[in-house]
């Protein structure tokens, strides 16, 4: 008996994987049904639906990048404190002090890559007409995922707390001042007033809600940190679960009718 077989026959291995190694047809079916990670997939699938030239693998790559971002992000959180005193210095220290410093690079380039792959995924879904019935609603979920992907990237951009970061966020969030009705420089903000007092000011408008302050400051850093590390990732994870579930329920990857 080879070492590999010995391991695969052991009680430990069997208790973890719940099925014999997928060598024959039967067990290749069983593995898909009994493994938690694999049960996302069906057991068998139309050959042309999984051709790389058809899906470009872009949805899958986006999902994988999301996982990479989660793992590297958690590692970065060990070394990073979201305060004016430490944020910049902690990132600086990642360069030469921390052994896992390259995680910052992987995290940043992975984030850029994810923005690009999510666009390309949408591009491919559009070009194969896969948003047409019965997949309309999964496309809608996709658009929300697209928005959250951009927001993830945007909130993360602030965290290094360098010049690049605060000014990009300042420019990006200045728009919120001009939100119709809800921004203090937006059309119609005067509509919301009580007895001559404006309800919408620079300390109560949409931008203030986003930044937690009148300008990009420590409150903003804290707010973006929580959005970036907790709130948005949870929302994205939930939406991805629904997205995948819908891919299956809508009949698998789209194919000619």
């Amino acid at each position, binding site marked *: 008996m080879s070492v590999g077989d010995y391991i695969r026959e052991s009680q430990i291995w069997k208790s973890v994987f719940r099925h014999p190694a997928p060598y024959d047809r039967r067990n290749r079916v069983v593995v898909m049904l009994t493994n938690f990670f694999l049960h996302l997939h069906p057991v068998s699938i139309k050959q042309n639906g999984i051709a790389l*030239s058809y899906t470009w693998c872009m949805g899958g790559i986006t999902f994988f990048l999301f996982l990479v971002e989660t793992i590297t992000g958690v590692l970065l959180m060990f070394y990073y404190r979201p305060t004016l005193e430490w944020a910049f210095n902690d990132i600086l220290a990642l360069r030469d002090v921390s052994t896992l410093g390259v995680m910052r*690079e992987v995290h940043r380039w992975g984030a850029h890559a994810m923005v690009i792959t999510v666009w390309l995924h949408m591009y491919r879904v559009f070009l194969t*007409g896969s948003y047409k*019935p019965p997949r309309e609603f999964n496309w809608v979920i996709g658009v929300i995922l697209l928005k959250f992907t951009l927001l993830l990237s945007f909130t993360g951009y602030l965290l290094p707390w360098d010049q690049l970061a605060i000014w990009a966020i300042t*420019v990006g969030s200045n728009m919120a001042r001009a939100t119709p009705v809800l921004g203090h*420089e937006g059309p119609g903000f005067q509509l919301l007033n009580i007895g001559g007092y404006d309800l919408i000011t620079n300390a109560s408008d949409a931008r203030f809600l986003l930044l937690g302050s009148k300008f990009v400051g420590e409150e903003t850093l804290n707010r973006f940190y929580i959005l970036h590390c907790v709130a948005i990732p949870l929302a994205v994870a939930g939406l991805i679960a629904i997205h995948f579930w819908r891919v299956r329920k809508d009949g698998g990857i789209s194919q000619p009718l």
Partner: protein
Amino acid sequence: MHLDPHPNLTSSVIYGLGFLYLVQVVMNLFWTARCMKAGNHQRLPSVLGGGDVPVAMWWGMYTALLSMVMIAHFTGYRNPEAFSLLLPDWFKGSVDVCVNDPKLFFLISTLIFAGIILLRKTLATDTAGWMLFNAATLFLSLSLTDWDFRQIVGKPDNVPIVGMLFIVGFFTWLFFKKANENDRRIEQGLRPLEAENNEKVLVWPDLVYTELIVMIALTAFLFVWGVLLEAPLEEPASSVKTPNPSKAPWYFLGLQEMLVYYDPWLAGVVFPSTILGGLMALPYIDFNKKGNGYYTFNERKFAISVFLFGFLPLWVGMIVLGTFLRGPNWNMFGIYEYWDVHKLEALNNVNLSEYFWLYGLGMSMPVPDATSSFGAQIATIVWRELPGILVTLGYLLLLPSVMAMTVFRNFAFRMGFFRFMVFANLVLLMAALPAKMVLRWAFNLKYLVAIPEYFINI
């Protein structure tokens, strides 16, 4: 000795470029081999004596040329002053003239978009694709000999954008290649290729192994990228030192570019929301049942053209413009041009109401009387801006009806009133950006409707 602070060539640049040419040599070697295997021949024009030559010969010659260029880089890097493989100034000058003006840039990107669609049969072949790819890599390699080009393209956060241009180009090419093939088949009464040989296979191993390989390759790719290119970290944040230019993150630069033409409430709030809303509405607007689950162009000409116009020139094109061409004071700079803070661009834009009252009628502008009642003030403002208000309302309310009765008759009939109005307004809002650009360039138009009193400028 006088040292140029911005040298076009240094030893390390030349040496590094050598590797870029090495990559091109290797990939063209493979291509030459592929052509040799295919064994295609090409008839020479009669001036050159007629006769057949193997296609592989051309590629062999090109590869040989690239090899010589590469060797020159690896041997001549020690003496950058004497190195002569540079982009000539006249070339840089002419490229810059084309790209440092938003008019020409937009015109050219629209022409490229139209060219892609009209010439799709010619461009989406393997040979044409390979030639385009070679042209792009060669252009990049030669451009990297320019100091200013390196500054802007080599910014760590901009590197992914250069990569994205290649990837978007590749996938657009791939789409048309597959769509052409299916369109041909459909013309012959066959089913699309995706419907052929579509047996069911087991996910383990067919899909699971692909996924595993992709994951390993991507992980390796990210680590190599991470080691080669350091993530940017500038000076610590300072709320008093405003950088010039101040740019949003790169994926929002298309939106930031809209700020040149529209006020923030439109460019920063209404239009982005419309883009997202419009995308979500898309499946409920497109009533065409064809083209579901396979690549085709002919069966979905309108939908694909509109989407490609939005994605290529408007989204990707504006990101390129915002990232590579917008410099200090948000002025336009060519890709080989120095970012001079003192570059001046005269701005004297005029509002439609000023055109109307001052120049058209030769009268003075109606001014709301600060002592009169609120209603009277509003009335004066509306009166003052009436021309623009009418134009805007006409654009959003009247034009859809005109569209419904003329070019989009068929659409209006099949969509019904409400759905058609949504569709027409989305298309018109998408066209609002190019429309305003043209008005700005043609008439120096600032605002169609200018009500700064209430932040309503259109």
